[in-house]
């Protein structure tokens, strides 16, 4: 259950359907760099409900075949250069969604249901272009009342970074409940944490409410500053200088390849 990052990353196979959180929710960036070092292929990334630098790097490194998300944003470092290039060349398949539809699809999976209905969306080009959504009649209404049916999204793996876990693999996520939903919708979760703590997190009732129990967790690895260069839960810690550097060099494939060599293939900066 508790293992090294390299081992955790090796459990993620080519073609894996990988659920990943938005930048505000704890992105497993150290694991992401290891996925690039292990040259993963054909990943289907699900941004829950959006994605950022993680997908940008994986796309640029050629690890991604499908991006299913409501956005890919680098925040104030937009536009994302390798994402833009991939879209221009058509090298990845896009499944563009809207945030609550990603949540609804995961919720359906979480409950073992085929789909979840959702309001809104009707009349948008998102609906027109989405391969899976269907407009159905509300079966409880006598009137014409159309609603969008979002089929279950069933990821193979939920991958994220959290503050701490115990040695049994119970992970504390606090109020970041989307991590719980995302994990319960997935076959398993691989989690990097700032630290592994002694004792069992479920023994303390005040902590227990924020615990993702190890029933759902397949692997945990310790990775201090595992979100670098992103901030963790929108707290302190965004490495502005590094992100400015990325923006400056990643505009060309050559510049991006040099970035990969320097910051990923040559090993972790500690």
């Amino acid at each position: 259950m508790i293992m090294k990052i390299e081992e955790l990353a090796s459990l993620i196979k080519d073609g894996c359907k990988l659920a990943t959180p938005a930048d505000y929710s704890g992105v497993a960036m150290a694991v992401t760099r290891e996925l690039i070092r292990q040259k993963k292929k054909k990943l289907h990334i699900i941004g829950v409900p959006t994605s950022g630098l993680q997908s940008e790097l994986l796309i640029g490194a050629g690890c991604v075949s499908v991006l299913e998300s409501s956005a890919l944003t680098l925040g104030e470092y937009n536009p994302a250069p390798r994402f833009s290039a991939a879209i221009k060349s058509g090298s990845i398949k896009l499944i563009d969604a809207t945030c609550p539809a990603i949540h609804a699809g995961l919720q359906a999976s979480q409950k073992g249901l085929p789909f979840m209905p959702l309001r809104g969306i009707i009349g948008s080009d998102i609906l027109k272009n989405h391969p899976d959504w269907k407009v159905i009649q509300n079966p409880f209404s006598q009137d014409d009342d159309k609603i969008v049916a979002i089929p279950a999204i069933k990821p193979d793996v939920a991958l994220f970074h959290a503050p701490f876990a115990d040695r049994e693999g119970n992970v504390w996520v606090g109020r970041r409940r989307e991590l719980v939903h995302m994990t319960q919708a997935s076959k398993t979760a691989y989690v990097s944490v700032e630290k592994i703590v002694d004792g069992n997190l479920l023994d303390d009732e005040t902590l227990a409410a924020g615990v993702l129990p190890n029933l759902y967790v397949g692997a945990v690895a310790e990775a201090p500053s595992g979100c670098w260069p992103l901030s963790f839960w929108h707290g302190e810690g965004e490495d502005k200088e590094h992100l400015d550097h990325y923006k400056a060099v990643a505009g060309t494939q050559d510049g991006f390849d040099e970035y990969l060599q320097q910051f990923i293939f040559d090993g972790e900066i500690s």
Partner: protein
Amino acid sequence: MSDASSKKALICFIANLLRDCNHVAVGASSPIPGAAALLAKAAWSSPRHVNILGSVKNNFLTNGSQELFDCAAQGRIDAFFLGGGQIDGSANINLMGRGEYPNNTPRWPGTFGSAYLYFLIPKVILFREEHSRRVLVDTVDFVSAPGCSAPETYRTGGPYGLLTNKAFFKFEKEKGCFSLKSIHAGSSLEDILDNTGFDFLYDKENTPATPEPNPELLKVLENEVSVKIRDVYPQFSDTIFTH
């Protein structure tokens, strides 16, 4: 007007639009609307609840990032802000990209929650500082979220108005178009006609100037709210306040 003072004027203008709200939600990268919501709360304790996505201090939700959408569907959010790389005269917004989908150039980040929230939040204020024919187009290239829906479509929310750095338009739901309500200092009707790519209703003789921000409200912004804004939007705060 300097850039800083015109931004402060926009903040005060928006704050006045939020005075009748209980709960205002603001997206992550919207410093002017976020500042306006914090200002309205500080000045009038109305809205009572301000939720700034991505902020730790100003986010009171505890059921994960889906809770905001659940709130919206239940009618628990009164106002929200949307922008767009393109906005057209029917209040359709495009957050996807220019050109033909899926190979847009440029491609923008994506639709986020707009295709849903636009249907379910009563007062959606479209806000985009840039007022140009590049942004305010006749027809958007991609409808991330439609401004209007067929009468049988479930819709409890939609566009309230459009605010730019030149003017404020109200959206006329029955007519399905914008009407020009006020012109900001430094602009004119002619300027607005020149720089708007869609048709809109206007009164040729009598479109009022946007009122100057109330000095008392500006004082609250400078003295009380600037600190709170700095917590959430440090870079933006540095550009408009001299701390």
